[in-house]
């Protein structure tokens, strides 16, 4: 059974702040959902390997050549804050 403490820990890992009310709600939801998800553990998977994709996957290579990239100005238009050349952020170290 998932506890409120576990939900708080997971929210921490997910970089989410949850209010007391949200913690309560997600704890109840997650107890139901995880109990449901637990059904997978009743299937015998002895000797079965995992699949990360449904179809066969393989490495894709291409030549390391210079190509046209995005225009810096256009990319920075979507930035919440920039100095015209780079993203601007609060300082990391004091």
């Amino acid at each position, binding site marked *: 059974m998932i506890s409120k403490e576990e939900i708080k820990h997971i929210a921490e890992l997910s970089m989410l702040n949850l209010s007391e009310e949200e913690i309560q709600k997600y704890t109840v939801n997650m107890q139901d959902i995880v109990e449901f*998800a637990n059904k997978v553990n009743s299937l015998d998977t002895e000797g079965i*390997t995992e*699949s990360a994709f*449904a179809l066969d996957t393989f490495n*894709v290579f291409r030549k390391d050549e210079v190509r046209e990239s995005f225009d810096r100005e256009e990319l920075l238009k979507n930035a919440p804050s920039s100095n015209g050349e780079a993203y601007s952020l609060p300082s990391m170290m004091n």
Partner: protein
Amino acid sequence: MKNICELTAHEIREAYESKELKVTDVVKAFYEKIKVDDEKIKGYITLCEEEAIAQAEAIQAKYDAGEKMGALAGVPIAIKDNMCTRGVKTTCASRMLENFIPPYDATVIKKLKDAGAIILGKVNMDEFAMGASTEHSAFFKTHNPVNLNKVPGGSSGGSAAVVAGDLSPISLGSDTGGSIRQPAAFCGIVGLKPTYGLVSRYGLVAFASSLDQIGPMTKDVTDAAILLNTIAGHDEMDSTSAKLDKKDYTKALVNDVKGIKIGIPKEFFGEGVNSEVKEKVLAAVKTFEELGAIVEECSLPATEYCLPAYYIIACAEASSNLGRFDGIRYGYRTKNYETMQDIFRNSRSEGFGEEVKRRIILGTYVLSSGYYDAYYKKAQKVRTIVKQNFDKVFEKYDLLLTPTAPSTAFDIDSKINNPLEMYMADLLTVPVNVSGVPAISMPCGSDSEGMPVGLQLIAKHFDEETLLRAAYTYEQNREVQ
């Protein structure tokens, strides 16, 4: 002739060729109807009217000059708002991307533009494609045009509603666990989820990368084939894109299913599937038999494990994919911050909606130390078994036939407070994503409330042709039920 807005894409295209219609008149007719009817349906988030009319004029001039035109030249289309459109907002129906204007076109958008399609606008969805009713949009709820009190399904609910409501002849949706097929079923249209890898995902905002696939949502099977022709194909910008020879899917539109072997997997007709839905789908099975298909019951024993395995895998991938939303490079940034940590946490907490947070939490949980083996790794093993199940039945059958969804469209607000119940709407569609095969949903009658019932046909990997052929044959021969 039918009203312009009721026409299919191929009818519109033929009317341009025969000079019965002008591109500008068609585009204007759709915007006029949108202005009236979308007040109630609420399918569109963004309209591209000015660009669309300018493009219509340019395309009409080419028709007038007698140029050879692309398959979708001058045909209007609506795009789910999780596909990047250069210069046009792409919100994913999230506060997080409310003001995001992509600097590039998704590959499917580029292909549509090259074929001459005209984008009418961007349509509503569940936030980040997480949901089965389009009620999880951060902006507004979309209503089912068949009955405005019902949901249109989801997550491509806007794409389904605008086609069913004659606010666009065709649209694109994306399908991670049923998000094209279930809304198509709920609104009474055709929805095709191609084989994983057939259509490039470049420029599709990622939800669960190993499951996501873009596909057509249309009024008929012919339009689905035409739209698939335009969007399918290898793309070096998507490393999971399949390298295959280009096919002409319209060649598969043959009115004949004699000798085609169709399996009816018994697990898809079990408890939890509404009896009226079963009745309509079994009537369609009978029609296929009468048309000469060979129909037999079959079994996919691991079906009951698909839905839990799907939610584990999809949420795990989502929690990782949505890690990119940090409030720095694009998207929402909180006003309330002093440190970098504040930017990350507050932007994400304020920018994501309730369902998205729930799935990030579930995904992070199943990937976290101590639970990884029990949930994530186990679900990946279930995926292997499900694939084996499908491989085995496809040794014997060309197609599988099932209901698309366990019920018809439900009332707005009826499941919004019960996430697990909402997840059950994906019960019959997720096995297809887990195994990567293609499937189509098409209408096969209505229930006693008049809501459409969808049947789902499933084919082998990359055998969209058999899928389209059977769907086309049924469409040509079905009786209104």
